[in-house]
């Protein structure tokens, strides 16, 4: 991953096609994906490759179809004719974290995290394995002392952590996040951002790539390797901007000139939309 950052030292990097992209492994790609709900066209010929070991943020005006794009990646929705969603392998596992925690209020944190592991006709894990995986996922997000709490006994931030644990428990290679911290307060949000990075870099998780929808420019710059800019509806990818910050990201990097420069650059482009 460090190599990825290095090759983007130049600030003009965004204007030349991503070099060496042929050598990098594509985990998931959208090609020429358009999507219409009846008369309304939401996405217009979206092309995006998600590479192994990268953190991508999708930035764009609200209601532009960013969440729809994640649903295409998850194959919960299919693109219109002509579009294609391809995975690196047929058994690529994806995890999803929604804006709301979407925890079942009648299940404890542990039961909620275990839930997806026990779904489906093909049982991937035994009961014991599922439980152990769920427990270790909860430990990873720091909820080891709250495993038997019900969602209404947890704070908003803890609920979202449980949701992240639920996504991690199934060992996803690609984690899709739809404004995961949008509903949280600034302090919790900042804390969870760094925890997310820590989880992503941790050898204990199988996470290779993260795609995060956000409407915060700062957040996108601080967290990601590339920022994907979307236009208003019908949304297409207008720009893909590499972030020239060193890796691993740490608190305090918001002070670096590269950070400010990239934020400014993104602001400019948002205005042009």
């Amino acid at each position, binding site marked *: 991953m460090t190599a990825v950052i290095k090759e983007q030292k130049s600030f003009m990097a965004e204007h030349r096609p991503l070099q060496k992209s042929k050598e990098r492994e594509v985990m998931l790609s959208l090609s020429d994906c358009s999507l219409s709900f009846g008369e309304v066209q939401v996405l217009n010929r979206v092309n995006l490759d998600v590479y192994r070991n990268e953190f991508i943020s999708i930035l764009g005006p609200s209601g532009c179809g960013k969440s729809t794009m994640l*649903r295409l990646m*998850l194959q*919960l929705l299919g693109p219109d004719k002509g579009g294609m969603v391809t995975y690196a392998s047929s058994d690529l596992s*994806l995890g*999803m974290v*929604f804006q*709301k925690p*979407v925890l*079942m*209020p*009648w299940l404890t944190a542990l039961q909620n995290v275990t*839930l*997806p592991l026990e*779904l*489906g*006709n*093909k049982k991937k894990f035994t009961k014991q394995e599922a439980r152990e995986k769920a427990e270790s996922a909860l430990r990873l997000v720091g909820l080891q002392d709250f495993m038997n709490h*019900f*969602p*209404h006994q947890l704070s908003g931030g803890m609920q979202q952590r449980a949701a992240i644990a639920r996504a991690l428990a*199934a060992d996803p290679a690609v984690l899709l996040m739809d404004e995961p911290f949008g509903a949280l307060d600034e302090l919790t949000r900042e804390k969870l951002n760094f925890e997310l990075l820590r989880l992503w870099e941790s050898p204990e998780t199988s996470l290779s790539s993260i795609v995060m929808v956000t409407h915060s420019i700062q957040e996108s710059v601080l967290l990601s390797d590339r920022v994907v800019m979307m236009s208003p509806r019908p949304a297409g990818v207008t720009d893909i901007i590499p972030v020239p910050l060193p890796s691993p990201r740490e608190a305090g990097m918001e002070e670096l000139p590269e950070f400010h420069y990239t934020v400014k650059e993104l602001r400019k482009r948002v205005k042009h939309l």
Partner: protein
Amino acid sequence: MTAKLKDSLYPLGFGLGFLLLWELAVRLFSIPVYLLPAPTAVLSAVEASLGSHMLVTLMESLAGFMLANILGFVTAVIFVHSKPIEKGAFPLAIALKTTPLVALAPLLVVWLGTGYSSKIVASTLICFFPILVNSVKGLKAIEYEAWELFSTYKGTKWEIFWKLRLPTSLPYIFSALKISTSLAIVGAIVGEFVGANKGLGYVVLVSSYHMDTPVMFSAIIASAACGLLLFWCVGLLEKKVIFWTRSDDL
């Protein structure tokens, strides 16, 4: 003294106060007993047979209540999984609901006789609609994202039903059950009015022929007690089953 005990003292105090005022009013204004019997007169009119009549009505209501809720819930499950059936049969259910039970009761007695079954069916008919409507609503009340979550992890229809739809619908189901408790008693009593030789409806009817107002009052109060008993049982069950909704006082 616990707060719970203290809370139950309020309705008890108000109830006793009301009875006292009633007794005093009857005595002070010497209201004739056939118009309004004093509480003491009602109490002295209570016989052992009232208990058995009460038990009859309670059993009829309970049987109708259970039958309606099982049938209504199963119908709702079918409706939720099949749009054509829902579209075709919902108007019929509404037509059934809008037909006054009082108008149907004589027909039920013609068809089923003066025994228990006509009362049970009357009770079933009146309880059927609330559970049907609420179950359909509850089973469909799942969060869209929760459905997406189950789909992402390849949850089957069966799993979506058991692990998502059913628990989501429980609060809706319980509010239907609470509404139905009093309706179930109404169904049984209407059935008894038309043709019966036992039950609280029968007691009310016969005592009205004899202008025996104290007995009539005792039967009316007993029917209210049946409703309260059912309501209380359902409420207790609800608290045990649905532990995750917070009931904050505002």
